[in-house]
């Protein structure tokens, strides 16, 4: 099976035009002893009918919990996605275009990226934003690299409230580059600004996540002051949905805001493809990694959009580029753009408020169950740490009852032995919460 259009007659005529006797002859530049002399050992071809049946049989072996029975967040959020997002996203023009290098024939792509950048700036309170990145973790890695370049220092202070996956991605690269990474431990669910201050001397940046991985609301302004006091940059990793309500990092004095746009209309999809973003203050625009779309005019003075400031990028500057990034996540940024524009300020606010309210409703109801406690007193957004007996078994029993019950924290935070991170979104109704709390009650017996 294949999608090739050439018939045997076409092939013969084309070979004749080339002056070759056979297709094999076209492969003569590959030395004979290096050619593969057997068929690849791959499973046999399937017709589309068989293919669909096969993939469907694999798909149904994955359990889905999308009807309000998912209480697991931890960096991947189960929000409702209006039908219009999928309908527009799946247009072949968007799917099958490539990088808008030919601006005149790519105004559609360039404009939707410009709108994405604009809204990321608006949400984060920043002046400039890029066209998107692989994901939130690599966006953070890039922001740390920007800070190291900007300050010419090689020390990074990072809160343990930053998503453990993000910290791990940052470590993989900067360990190799010989940077010092200082982790500041959270205390009862939030990062103590005093400890950040003590650790900040000589740092390129301080990194804090808000809301943090444990759901807690952090003091971004305090963190930014601590960073600026020693000439470091303040980097905030944020959930863009939360910025419908929370004070934007730009207003808190942060220099760079990064994050993951998955909560904005992107399917959880087992973790990707998603969409990282980076927004920053104006003065960092020439240090930003990756593609940026800018507004300009054409020969007639008519408005148009282009990829701009490309002198920062690998295809121009090669070894002196600000990053090696080549692609962005244009298609996923498109989803986030359609989602935000569809919901508008009121819709996004509704999502954020409902997520916060349901999470507080969940924790209040769980706290009524004997042996179950809310772990921390600090304010939290739409995730909360719950202490309960025997988390692994409890979560397993909840799974049997059809609930994705949350994340057992001990593998990520050694001392959180009885702690589970739970999350609600607008999809968890009060009825779902009551059923879940009942499930927890039975599971811990």
């Amino acid at each position: 099976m294949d999608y090739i259009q050439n018939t045997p007659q076409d092939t013969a005529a084309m070979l004749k035009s080339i002056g070759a006797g056979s297709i094999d002859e076209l492969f003569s530049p590959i030395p004979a002893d290096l050619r593969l002399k057997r068929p690849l050992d791959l499973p046999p071809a399937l017709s589309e009918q068989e293919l669909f049946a096969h993939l469907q049989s694999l798909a149904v072996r994955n359990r889905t919990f999308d009807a309000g029975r998912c209480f697991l967040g931890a960096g991947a959020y189960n929000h409702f996605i209006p039908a219009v997002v999928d309908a527009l996203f799946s247009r072949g023009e968007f799917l099958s275009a490539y990088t808008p290098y030919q601006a005149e024939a790519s105004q559609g792509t360039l404009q939707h990226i410009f709108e994405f950048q604009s809204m990321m700036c608006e949400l984060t309170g920043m002046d400039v934003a890029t066209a998107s990145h692989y994901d939130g973790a690599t966006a953070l890695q890039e922001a740390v690299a920007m800070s190291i370049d900007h300050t010419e220092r090689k020390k990074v202070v990072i809160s343990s409230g930053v998503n453990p996956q993000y910290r791990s991605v940052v470590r993989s690269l900067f360990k190799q580059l010989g940077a010092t990474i200082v982790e500041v431990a959270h205390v009862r669910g939030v990062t103590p600004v005093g400890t950040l201050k003590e650790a900040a001397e000589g740092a390129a940046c301080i990194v804090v996540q808000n809301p943090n991985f444990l759901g807690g609301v952090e003091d971004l302004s305090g963190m930014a002051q601590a960073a600026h006091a020693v000439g470091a940059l303040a980097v905030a990793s944020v959930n863009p949905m939360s910025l419908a309500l929370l004070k934007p990092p730009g207003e808190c004095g942060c220099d760079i805001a990064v994050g993951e746009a998955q909560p904005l209309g992107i399917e959880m999809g087992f973790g990707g493809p998603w969409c990282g973003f980076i927004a920053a203050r104006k003065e960092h625009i020439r240090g930003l990694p990756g593609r940026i779309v800018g507004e300009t005019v054409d020969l007639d003075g008519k408005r148009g959009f282009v990829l701009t400031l490309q002198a920062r990028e690998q295809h121009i500057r090669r070894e002196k580029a600000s990053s090696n990034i080549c692609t962005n996540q244009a298609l996923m940024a498109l989803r986030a753009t359609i989602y935000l524009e569809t919901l508008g300020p009121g819709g996004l606010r509704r999502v954020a408020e409902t997520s916060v309210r349901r999470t507080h409703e969940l924790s209040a109801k769980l706290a009524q169950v004997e042996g179950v406690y809310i772990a921390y007193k600090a304010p939290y957004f739409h995730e909360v740490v719950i202490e309960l007996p025997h988390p692994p078994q409890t979560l397993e029993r909840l799974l049997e009852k059809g609930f994705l019950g949350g994340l057992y924290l001990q593998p990520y935070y050694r001392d959180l032995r009885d702690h589970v991170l739970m999350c609600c979104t607008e999809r968890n109704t009060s009825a779902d919460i009551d059923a879940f709390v009942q499930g927890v009650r039975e599971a811990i017996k």
Partner: protein
Amino acid sequence: MKTIFEKSHPGRSTSYFPEPSAAEAPIASLLPGSALRAKPPSLPEISELGIVRHFTELSHRMFSIDGNFYPLGSCTMKYNPKVNEKIAVLPGFAKVHPLQPAVSIQGILEVMWSLERMLAEISGMDAVTLQPAAGAQGELTALLVAAAYFRDRGERRTKVLIPDSAHGTNPATATLAGCRTVSVKSNKRGGVDLEDLKAKLSARTAALMITNPSTLGLFEEEIKAVADLVHQAGAFIYMDGANMNAIQGRARPGDFGIDVMHFNLHKTFSTPHGGGGPGSGPVACKKFLEPYLPLPRLRREGDVFSFDGAHPKSIGKVKSFWGNVGMHVRAYTYIRYHGPEGIRRNAEHAVLNANYLLSKLKKHFKVAYDRTCMHEFVLDGTPLFKKTGVRTLDVAKRLLDYNFHPPTIYFPLIVHEALMIEPTETEGRETLDAFAEALIQIAEEAKTDPKKVQTAPHTMPVRRLNEVKAAKEPNVRWCTPCDPPPPPRIDEGESGGTAPPV
């Protein structure tokens, strides 16, 4: 066309959520006032129909494979099968949380495990990680793996050799990984200059990064000798797999001496390019490098699949979770549809189409390296420029008026006025003929009416754009909130012919 912000109409929106009950707790009682934003973000307010019209109009203002021949060299713009999209959105793939317990996601783990095995077979490698999100991240992963390997052996190797025809990501990646890059010259036939390679290899060399077939569309005839030299120096040889489409099923990097490489699933295995991403850049390597691959590894015991995080020598994670899994599902679907025969035929017809197009064009244009090409070839627009003053950029822009997406231009850097053409296997002969005729006609126009070519395009929604202005006065966001609103314009004529106020 207006931006969405100019179409915003306060109070106009569609509701997607149930109304909150009056008894709901006020947000101010749940979150501290100091943490809240003073004014809501200024997002556009548009009806659903308004949204549909906006994005439909945007989609009409761009070229795509679905709409146009798109011979963008080195990008492998082949047809993206519709069945892949239908499968990728099945709830069992699209609506799965990345931290679900392994027992609840056996289907998706089987897809990923099988894709790893299939990529290993296609490349002749031993182990594969699917985690890197794109080719450039695959390159970085490979160099981090190399660094970890040498650190483990107590060797200090920090130089990376890169042929002068390489993609810009190669040197940028080497720098990002903390290495120094050393450029290696190409010889007269477009291959690696062995003498120059020998001179530049040293006990400090970590790796040679090579693209094979090269960015010139040529198979590196002396690849075996190149690999031997690199191995004798104690370094290893990394292959940028951007051009795997030309050789899949006909030759395997693992068989010609490559130690580690990346795939571009969005090129070879036709996952959608999406206007510039997402990509997916799995890394394949030989056995001796496997312990250093990113965490976690996929494991199969009997018929049970799981993640395995117990690899102390691993470089750690390079991306959240497990990679661009939606792209893994599509690539798996694509390979299963094709089977071994179909995969090989893809390479054969990609090479056939490229050589056919070359045969039609070489009487009219200078060919940078006149050899049998693989999946792409490079024309040199210098003679045309000297004769007519028309540059490759102008030719590219004029192609838009013929409804063809231009080839990659001004790359590789070693060819002046380069036009790098990759037709892919999914195009038919009529399309290739029409494209060749268009290029030939443009070359003719360059002689008879150069102005017309130099001021092209003439039929696009916008004419040539002022890139200097864009870079000099960067305006990268819509700015009504930060500036006074612009005066109303009634002459724009885009809202269906606005009547002047009475």
